[in-house]
């Protein structure tokens, strides 16, 4: 039994602590918003926040986050109105949408880390999240909008 604060709720997850956090979130906690994309920390589809920092949930174990605050896309904002989510909708970013939860979680951490991000900082900050549909231009615009209001 591993204790974490999952989307603001103290939770006990009944799974092997060696299980990757991704599968604990999806299969055990039943939160399907966090996506499996590569299982190797290469695509960012499974990005969640651990104590406010963007992490690849496929690369850390449930045991690694004992006692930590874990936030998934479902818990980013109670009404789904985090500034990054609103910016995403404003720019009509997604195509298939599969990678977008990871993109949004990455962007939300990036925006929280540093206000008034430059474009170069956005490009570097989002480089580890793959979008196969190729929404990058709009992703950059949405992160800029969320970060700077422009």
């Amino acid at each position, binding site marked *: 039994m591993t204790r974490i604060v999952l989307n603001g709720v103290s939770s006990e997850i009944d799974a092997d602590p060696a299980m990757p956090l991704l599968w604990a979130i999806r299969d055990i906690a039943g939160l*399907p918003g966090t996506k499996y994309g590569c299982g190797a920390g290469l695509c960012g589809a499974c990005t969640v926040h651990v104590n406010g920092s963007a992490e690849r949930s496929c690369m850390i174990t449930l045991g690694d986050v004992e006692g930590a605050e874990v936030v998934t896309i479902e818990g980013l904002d109670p009404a789904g109105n985090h500034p990054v989510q609103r910016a995403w909708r404003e720019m009509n970013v997604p195509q298939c949408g599969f990678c977008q939860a990871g993109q949004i979680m990455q962007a939300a951490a990036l925006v929280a880390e540093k206000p008034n991000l430059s474009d170069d900082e956005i490009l570097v900050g989002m480089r580890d999240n793959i979008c196969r549909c190729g929404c990058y231009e709009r992703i950059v615009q949405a992160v800029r909008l969320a970060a700077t209001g422009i």
Partner: protein
Amino acid sequence: MMHAIEKLVRAERATKPAMTILKVDRRVFLVGSGAGLALASFAGPLAAFEGYAVGGSDMPNGVVTDPRIFVAIDPDGTVTIVAHRAEMGTGSRTSLPMVLADEMGADWARVTIVQAPGDEPRYGNQDTDGSRSMRHHIQSMRQMGAAVRTMLARAAAAEWGVAEGDVTVGVHEVTGPNGSLGFGDLAAAAMALDVPAAENLAFRDESEFRYIGTGSVPITDLHDITTGKAVYGADVSLPGMLHAVVARPAVVGGKVVSFDAEAALAIPGVTRVVELPAAGSPVYFAPLGGVAVVASNTWAALRGRDALEIVWEDGPNASYDSAVFRVEMEATAAMPGAVVRDQGDWDAAKAAAARVISGQYYQAHMAHATMEPPVALANFANGALEVWAPVQSPYGTRKDLATFTGLDEAAVTVHTTLLGGGFGRKSKCDFAIEAALLSKEVGAPVRVQWTREDDIRHGYYHSTSIDHIEAAVDDSGKVTGLLHRVVAPSIMSIFMEDSGYLANWENGMGHTDMPFDVGALRCENGKAMAHTRIGWWRSVNNVPRAFAMQSFIAELAEATGRDHKDLLLELIGPAREVDPDGMGLPDGLWNYGESADVYPIDAGRFAKVVNVAADAAGYGQALPEGEAIGLAVHRSFVTYVAAAARVRVVDGRVEVPEIHMAVDCGFAANPERIRSQMEGAAVMGMTLAMHSGITFENGAVVQSNFSDYQMVRTDNFPRKVTTHIVPHPFSVPAAGVGEPGVPPIAPAIANGVFFATGKRMRSLPIGDLV
């Protein structure tokens, strides 16, 4: 009695864990009960559009135009519209209902969309592929919208006792001399009316469109996608569901000789180890076979698979080696092939030429690498099978599931979830069949999850190819003939005994259908046998054909001292519709299933997109050292796209700061999604140009994940894509945009590199550095 559409609403809500509002007592009225409609001419009173024939009628189960199948109206005014095509990112799930809603007069804010299960006898063709959704269905959506609008108007007129001409259908309400009634108020009365015949329908004038052609409607799943509530293939769960992963043969045609499951079964959570039968030949969409590990969670299944000890027999493809095969294809390309187009006299043109200039181009295999790897959930219980899967052809999947499980089609249900990317991979339902076979075997619902490595190593690969091109040039530098010879394994090899030759429909994708105005034009196809599963991949054969020919024309311009754009336009020739009967095609023109009368090969439209893209990019202007604008144009899926890519080479690294894309897809139904498709095509095109190479050694795929099958990322992607849509009225037949944006990108980038550095890129992928 519950209407079928309400069943869809309930089924869809049941799969959404986060959905909290469930109106269980909701009644949905049928809108109309009259005779079904035939797709006929649309010479309505307003004559707002004349119908035209599309290939949709020739697709299995055709196009359905009965609004009772697609539309329901609640008493509260909610309009429910069925999306019958799969959504993989192109926006068809939004754009087709949007067309219907606009013509009907519905307020988009009060429209709910439900996804149809695989049922083509009911909904018409659902095979979401070939950039067909908008092309085949824009007219039927308008027709159904107009029919519902007419029925609502008639119901209101009857209610008020006034003539139909005295009522006006506004936005979500009907207004008469003495007031207004909402669509919900009229739904019950409208239900009692016959569906008006197509020839009696009036259509809105284009100036009345609120959504069609305006790009004002965000995609219907936007909120769900941004909040993690959108449901993809791995997001549906059933009570008692088990998780499975499969160890598949590394070589297509390989078999399990023996396996030891003891260590796998010792992993906590692993419940069963099941051998799956090897695929036969031709391989079709059959699972590859292997050994499945079934467990209580995905991680246990993965650990169990790692613990399996399997002895494989690799079979007849064990020696497939990409480097060796390339040499073989090159040898074949050096000799004449089967003639698949012979216009004019190439031999004479070549004999008379002052110079013969040639070029040869290679493309490696490619994997689709959808962000969502293949995944499916199946529940085989009580002699029936229910499947939730991200499939492009839900009815085709249903039929295949019936075949592979021995069930009647009637006992199989296929729910289409959202697709986390498709690109042709999810036309092949091998992963859904795996889930069904395993659920049947273990007696519980089973989700089969493919890992990224599974996806990269067990795909249906885009064909590898050699394109050999020769041009005959006279004393004045004029091109008097072209020879284009293609050597590539055929997609048909998965469906029938491999002949080694491409099908007419493959040759028709950018090889034999080009408009060139030269004296002689010969196309040939050399033999190449398939040694893996060859599948269609976004834009299909058009990708290597456009890369080769559009690269060659740039080389030809350089060799003959011509400006690239001038030569390109000269080869396209004067504005005209190319006569298919004069093209020298022994098997006739394959025009994506469309009549050349409705969707002609129009040289004027080719030239137009070239000029629009080139002008917007500032083609011809002086650029800094190491920069150039690369041009390319291609028509695929009856849509014309030109790309003008500004390319910069910095220390060998190719950068693409800007691409102008000009697209002519006939009438542009949803410009906003057309732009997003072009932006995405630019990125995917750059990825395939720079990185996408699947290679085989000892019959097996070498690559494994995004580490060695790389994608373009935000640190180097086409930074600014500007899409220029050639405007047309509704009367110019609409075409799709899911695929046509891709083919011109790689040659535009390669040509940019060429003019910036003098280095010719003749092999795809180019690699990290030039």
